[in-house]
């Protein structure tokens, strides 16, 4: 009996103390005490938390690097693909610009000229010869002897034809000779190619005044080329009084090293004058 009374009073006292502590706590009187007690606890908690996060990052960051690397590789692949597209588009743009220039030339020169555009696909394997190959042949109306030009000026003429390709002898070829006339003096001469790809003006009468900058155009004489196609300009003149003719070096308007596309004049037929040339008597 006595023991149960004692337990009752202990419990009641404990409950009252707890209730009292709660009330004291709510009223704010325990704050200084709690602050003193909790501060080291919070410190320990913070220390533990920082260490935990450090360990967590140590474990998880490599996974992020791997994912970043994967993402980076994907982006690099995408960039490489886009760069390839840019290069392809730039190439197409350059080709289109060349073709537009040729088209402009064809539109600007409607005087009966029929043109077939062709792409340059190769050069003669022998370095002594200045010939190019184009991707148009007899199936496209190309015939031997047809003149070949660009929007800038004369390129050469068709030398051989297959069904889908043709070989063009450039005016810079050592075996090429074109009859030309000068502007503004209208002197008649002939241009000759060379193994260096340079063109020289030959057979020019000493009586014709030639100056640097004079224009050279095809004369149409001989029937191999149509007249008035621009070829180049006189750069230097070589004139000696004791020689029959004077000569000059010519800067061509066409850059033959970077030829990409050309126009073939398909309605021009060269005239064969060989029957009219007198053969030497035996």
């Amino acid at each position: 009996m006595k023991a149960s009374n004692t337990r009752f009073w202990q419990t009641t006292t404990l409950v009252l103390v707890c209730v009292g502590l709660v009330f004291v706590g709510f009223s704010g009187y325990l704050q200084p005490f709690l602050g003193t007690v909790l501060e080291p606890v919070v410190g320990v908690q913070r220390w533990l938390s920082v260490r935990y996060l450090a360990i967590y990052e140590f474990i998880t960051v490599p996974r992020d690097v791997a994912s970043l690397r994967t993402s980076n590789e994907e982006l690099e692949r995408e960039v490489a693909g886009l760069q390839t597209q840019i290069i392809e588009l730039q190439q197409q743009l350059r080709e289109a610009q060349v073709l537009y220039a040729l088209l402009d030339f064809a539109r600007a020169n409607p005087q009966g000229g029929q043109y077939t555009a062709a792409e340059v696909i190769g050069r003669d394997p022998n370095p002594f010869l200045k010939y190019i190959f184009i991707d148009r042949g007899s199936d496209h109306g190309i015939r031997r002897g047809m003149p070949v030009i660009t929007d800038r000026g004369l390129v050469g003429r068709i030398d051989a034809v297959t069904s889908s390709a043709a070989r063009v002898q450039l005016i810079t070829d050592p075996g090429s000779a074109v009859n030309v006339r000068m502007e503004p003096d209208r002197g008649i001469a002939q241009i000759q190619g060379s193994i260096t790809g340079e063109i020289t003006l030959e057979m020019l009468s000493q009586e014709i005044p030639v100056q640097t900058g004079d224009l050279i155009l095809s004369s149409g004489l001989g029937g191999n080329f149509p007249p008035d196609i621009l070829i180049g300009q006189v750069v230097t003149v070589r004139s000696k009084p004791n020689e029959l003719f004077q000569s000059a070096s010519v800067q061509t308007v066409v850059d033959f090293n970077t030829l990409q596309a050309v126009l073939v004049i398909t309605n021009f037929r060269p005239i064969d004058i060989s029957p009219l040339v007198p053969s030497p008597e035996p």
Partner: protein
Amino acid sequence: MVTLLGVPIIGFLLIIQTAVISRLKLLEGTGDLILLFVIAWALQGRVRSAWQWAIIAGVLVSLVTALPYFIALAGYLTITLMARLLQHQVWQTPILAMFVTTFVGTVVFHLLSISGLALAGTTLPIQESLTLVTLPSALINLILALPVYTVVSDLSNWAYPAEEV
């Protein structure tokens, strides 16, 4: 069979030659991939189709180039003869034979070209041709000689495998 294989191989080389190699110039000289291939093929000891490949090369190049028809054929046959003779003389150092034949072969081929063009009516200045075209071409060919020889050597080992004793 190996002889017929020469047609597509030399045809492919001719495409590379006209589309790429002929545009790569040193002064006015260019490399000659087919010449190098013919020389390297003729220098391989086990190869039995060197003459046939030289004829194929001559015919295919003649179809493309503006040179007179017989020049390329005569040039490749002459160079094959040189390579075969040299292969018997200095068989222990095939690379040396390759370099020697490349240089001499380039000069001979170019002299034949100049002669052929002169016969066709186009006279070229000899000194200018040699200094501006032939010597630069020979230099390019010498640079290309080693890689071409390596490739052709592998090709010949594949086409004519060594007989096991």
